[in-house]
């Protein structure tokens, strides 16, 4: 017996999964660059969110056409991957269609896979047309050029190829066709090869089989570099997503401590401050390390679908702000920081860059109305608003760099208890007017 194919297969499997595992480790390391945040509350609601939003795709169907097609591709992909199990066993053990021994049920399974493969193939073509022929607006924004645009299309091409290879593999499997059990789609492809010799058909079958499994391993490794990472991260991300009312912004604990101190009449303002070795907390965020790890997980999860941006009032009225770009910038900067750490033996070396200004401009940040349309629209519970808010906090509390009109407003609140220069003593005048 010739063991070379088995050995080659094992090597491909080990290399494919090993490289992926290495990148997953990097991914986790990068996400952990964010500071900690308490996510231990509301576990039952969190599980429910994950079940409904990630598993159940509840947000996707808010846009029925895209939602329906997406469910086909999603369900199709998960189910067809059961077939991968058989391929792996066959590849390692040198068997052929090891599960075919289970009898008629095998035909039912493979038949279902074939139907799904066809549906996925058709859906992916429609996706491609929506992007490239119909040119739906949210796929053609400023941030969707170069890599992001190509990435989206590459994913579609890979999916088309994988589905096609699966069907061709079945169509050219003469034994499988002879069984005539489960070849619901591939029987119509088989005649295309009927003129060829049995040997050639066998070579085609083997090639399709190998390309299919190598393609899947390749695709697995492509995820880390792509928005397609969402197929994995959507699950943790919907779990860790916001469970409080959308309108609730967190109260900064570091500020609370200082405010309590300032308001406490028992504190002697002239007393010497206790020596502290800790660096004073930085308020808000100017770079990715100032964000929390859920926000960084959000960035890696973003599918770049642009639903957020298409609902954003600022973006709809021509402002530079795009919540999708906020997420893409955060991921790009985080990747840059991660590479920097890799190149410098595990520690970050100052590179003179940051998320603020080098990626996200102030003009974008100040255009947000905090309306939560983006967080409502996101199919995977991403919160671009929280990043915008943390960066505003940095601008105002660390740099005093609010727009002049906002500074006036804040001075008024501070002095008169209202955003305008009215006297607090006049607050009840309306009663007698």
């Amino acid at each position, binding site marked *: 017996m010739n063991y070379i194919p088995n050995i080659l297969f094992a090597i491909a499997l080990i290399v494919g999964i090993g490289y992926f595992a290495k990148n997953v480790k990097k991914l986790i390391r990068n996400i952990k660059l964010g500071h900690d945040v308490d996510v231990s509350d509301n576990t039952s609601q969190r599980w429910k969110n994950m079940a409904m939003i990630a598993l159940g795709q509840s947000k996707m169907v808010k846009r029925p056409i895209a939602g329906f097609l997406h469910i086909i591709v999603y369900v199709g992909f998960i189910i067809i991957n059961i077939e991968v199990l058989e391929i792996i066993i066959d590849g390692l053990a040198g068997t052929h269609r090891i599960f075919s021994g289970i009898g008629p049920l095998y035909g039912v399974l493979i038949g279902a896979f074939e139907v799904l493969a066809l549906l996925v193939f058709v859906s992916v073509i429609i996706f491609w047309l929506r992007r490239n022929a119909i040119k739906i607006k949210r796929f053609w924004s400023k941030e969707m050029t170069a890599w992001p645009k190509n990435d989206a299309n590459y994913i579609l091409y890979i999916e088309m190829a994988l589905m096609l290879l699966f069907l061709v593999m079945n169509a050219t499997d003469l034994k499988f066709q002879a069984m005539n059990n489960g070849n619901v789609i591939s029987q119509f492809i088989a005649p295309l090869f009927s003129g060829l010799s049995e040997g050639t058909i066998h070579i085609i079958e083997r090639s399709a089989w190998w390309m299919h499994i190598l393609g899947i391993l390749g695709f697995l490794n492509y995820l880390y570099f792509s928005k397609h990472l969402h197929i994995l991260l959507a699950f943790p991300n919907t779990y860790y997503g916001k469970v409080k*009312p*959308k*309108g*609730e*912004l967190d*109260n*900064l604990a570091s*500020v*609370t401590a*200082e*405010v*309590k101190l300032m*308001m406490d009449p028992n504190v002697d303002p002239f007393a010497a401050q206790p020596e502290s070795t800790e660096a004073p907390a930085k308020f*808000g965020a100017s770079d990715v390390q100032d964000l929390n790890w859920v926000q960084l997980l959000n960035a890696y999860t973003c599918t770049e679908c642009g639903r957020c941006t298409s609902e954003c*009032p*600022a973006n*709809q*009225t*021509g*402002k*530079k702000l795009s919540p999708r770009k906020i997420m893409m910038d955060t991921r790009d900067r985080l990747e840059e920081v991660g590479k920097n750490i890799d190149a410098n033996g595990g520690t970050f070396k100052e590179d003179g860059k940051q998320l603020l200004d080098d990626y996200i401009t102030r*003009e974008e940040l*100040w*255009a947000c*109305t*905090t*309306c*939560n*349309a983006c967080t*409502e*629209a996101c199919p995977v519970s991403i919160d671009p608003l929280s990043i915008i*808010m943390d960066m*505003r*906090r*940095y*601008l*105002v*509390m660390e740099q005093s760099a*609010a*727009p002049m*009109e*906002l500074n006036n*407003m*804040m001075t008024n*609140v*501070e002095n008169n*208890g*209202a*955003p*305008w220069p*009215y006297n*607090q*003593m*006049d*607050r*009840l*005048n*309306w*009663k007698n*007017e």
Partner: protein
Amino acid sequence: MSNTLKVPTMAEYMAEGKQPEVLFWVGCMGSFDDRAKKVTKAFVRLLNRANVDFAVLGTEESCTGDPAKRAGNEFLFQMQAVTNIEVLNAYEIKKIVTACPHCFNTIKNEYPGLGGNYQVMHHTQFLKSLLDEGRLTIEGGQFKGKRITFHDPCYLGRANNVYEAPRDLIRKLDAELVEMKSCKSRGLCCGAGGAQMFKEAEPGNKEVNVARTEQAVDVKPEIIAAGCPFCNTMMTDGVKAKDKESEIAVMDIAELIANAQDL
């Protein structure tokens, strides 16, 4: 129109050793903005009509800190919040109603973490409860059969999932409630939130309030109903920008109900 408004303050209640049923948090817009003051008074007329035992803080009320927080000034926000919470807790306030969704959101969601725990209601929710308890009746009056569209305030709708109370009230007026293209959880912002009210917009090709008003104009309403003083201003300006002042009125739900009964 009755012009004797009964507006007792908490200090007055305290002096009598009594506790009101609910505190009416008026808010900065409701206290100082000429348009919003009319809404404040309409709401008070309804409270008086329903014999609700309420009080205001009057000169002891101060900005909730919402615009400061959303502008990024967490310090100023928390200073405001802690000061207000001290006043509210000193009066042992349990229940608060407000006609401003921003105050509503801030007090309801962001004050508890700083020591302020109250039951907070938006005025549309409160009016709905008065109606359900039979303390207030609503007649269609002049609004019977009128085409009314409701603009969801972001801080009431998406932020806190209140979509039905204002709509229930409009339906009670026997009016024809029509929905805009973007409504409820997908409602389009008026453009005022996040402290935008206080600054010029960033460069773009349109003002947000004009975009929203266009959606409203599309459904040909006679009235755009608002539930937020900021939205009210933005939509009123939008209607002006579209030259529709003679055809479309922008009114708060409290005004609709009060006017329907000639209060």
